[in-house]
């Protein structure tokens, strides 16, 4: 072999070895994973009240959040301080959305149990394959010292994140959503927050009353056990291909506001999740479209006589890909 060819091969080899090392969990990955678990616990289990600022596309929204966790469970109220009054009330497994305005709306969700297994982040389906995670120094946010964590996606099918976590508790004080190139798409930050304070029932009561609004309630038809997960083989539908790292995490069924049954497939790569809903369309057809709710993208389209909805905090290309790849799963007896 010529020396120059040999040298080039050696260089390529070193790069490849470095890449291969990147696909295995490192100490830094595990430390970052531990901090993300702390964050998850702190966000759920601490009492806090604070003011959140949400920035996206040059627009700024201000929100108020009040969160209480005690022996009665979690109660949370998030409401807007700008524009039309709107609130979200969480109480245990129930979530109620109140939207005031010219077309007021009440949406209620009742789900028996979370469908994503409640595991530490590093025991889930290898987020390290899909992301690069690292600490990025310390910063001061809302008067508190924070540890900064950056999570960059390895492909364009998911978003990255920067988290600013309060050093003592791990509480999330600032969060930024990144695209594949590291550009900030959206930022959410506390401008003031009180941690570990007593929260009264009065603070958690809704301030707005929505009258004469259509009310939508979604009920769980079969509740999946949270720890063991559901039997994934019950899925009637499946995407033929998925972006790297995403796996089917759970299958559920429910009944929509119109009484129709839908199948719910939940996919996750350990950090990012999206849901696929398939329901009989009946006489309702749906034009193919993608809608954006902040960073959340929603694909709606038809597959045979079924309406397909894909929902997730992922780029629009991802929801489109999943919907396009969706197909009926072979009968359970034939593929095992």
């Amino acid at each position, binding site marked *: 072999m010529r020396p120059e060819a040999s040298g080039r091969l050696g260089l390529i080899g070193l790069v*490849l070895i470095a890449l291969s090392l990147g696909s295995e969990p490192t100490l830094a990955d595990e430390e970052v994973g531990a901090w993300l678990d702390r964050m998850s616990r702190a966000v759920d289990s601490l009492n806090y009240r604070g003011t959140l600022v949400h920035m996206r596309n040059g627009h700024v929204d201000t929100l108020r959040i009040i969160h209480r966790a005690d022996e009665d469970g979690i109660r949370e109220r*998030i409401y807007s301080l700008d524009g039309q009054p709107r609130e979200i009330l969480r109480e245990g497994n129930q979530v109620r959305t109140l939207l005031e305005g010219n077309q007021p709306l009440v949406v209620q969700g009742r789900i028996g149990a979370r469908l994503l297994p409640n595991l530490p982040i590093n025991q889930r389906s290898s987020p390290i394959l899909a992301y690069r995670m690292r600490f990025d120094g310390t910063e001061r946010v809302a008067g508190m010292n924070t540890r900064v964590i950056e999570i960059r996606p390895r492909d*364009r099918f998911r978003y990255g994140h920067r988290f600013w976590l309060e050093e003592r508790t791990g509480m999330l004080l600032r969060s930024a959503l990144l695209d594949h190139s590291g550009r900030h798409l959206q930022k959410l930050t506390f401008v003031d927050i009180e941690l570990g304070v007593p929260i009264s029932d009065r603070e958690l009561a809704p301030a707005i009353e929505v009258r004469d609004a259509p009310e939508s309630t979604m009920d769980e038809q079969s509740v999946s056990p949270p720890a063991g997960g559901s039997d994934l083989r019950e899925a009637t539908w499946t995407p033929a291909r998925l972006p790297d790292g*995403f796996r089917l995490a759970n299958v559920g069924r429910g009944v929509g506001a119109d009484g129709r049954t839908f199948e719910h497939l939940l996919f996750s790569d350990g950090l990012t999740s999206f849901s696929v809903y398939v329901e009989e369309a009946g006489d309702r057809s749906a034009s193919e479209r993608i809608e954006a709710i902040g960073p959340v993208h929603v694909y709606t389209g038809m597959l045979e006589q079924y309406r397909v*909805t894909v929902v997730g905090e992922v780029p629009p290309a991802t929801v*489109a890909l999943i919907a396009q790849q969706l197909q009926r799963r072979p009968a359970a007896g034939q593929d095992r």
Partner: protein
Amino acid sequence: MTEANREQLSCLMDGELERRGRDFLVRRLAGDAELTHRWHRYHVIKACLQREFIGQTGLAERVAAALDDERPPVRDQTGVGRWLKPAGGMAIAASVAVAALVGINSSVLEKGPGEHPADQPGFVSQSTSLDRPFNQPLVPVSLSETSAADRQRINTYLLRHNQAVGSAGFVSYVPIVVGAGSQPGVPASEPDAAAAGSRGR
């Protein structure tokens, strides 16, 4: 084209550019083909998202075509992928490492749909060309563009998704509160609210 140009173009579309900046950009648009092309693309994207585009969108077909264009993966016939363990990795000769990466690409990252267990769908290894059109700054559609029934359906599905995921806490629910801010019927006399509505935050 710089990020600043794209941002200015986006602001121009949203009517957020002050007069001098607007005049300057319009003059540039007249003489800059790339900028003009991007301007057209933004409008097509916006029209598609707001379901005003009267041409053929064929989203599913384009996704399928983009996937078909992807080069099929090379299957791992050698099983050398397992050599790429971190402990031994540094000792591997460069030529072996090249072969090993091919093994990883084919055996771990890429599998055909038929080769998976019944409960695990297949994977694609890399981003495909289909996501390129979506890399442009997105002009999101407002939920006000949809019917009340559709809004209900989307909101309930989004709520259920957030509940199913569980652990993300308030971060998951903020998009619902913020995204719901652009309701139909916002009076035109409220410029801020109207602008927000057109973006469909």
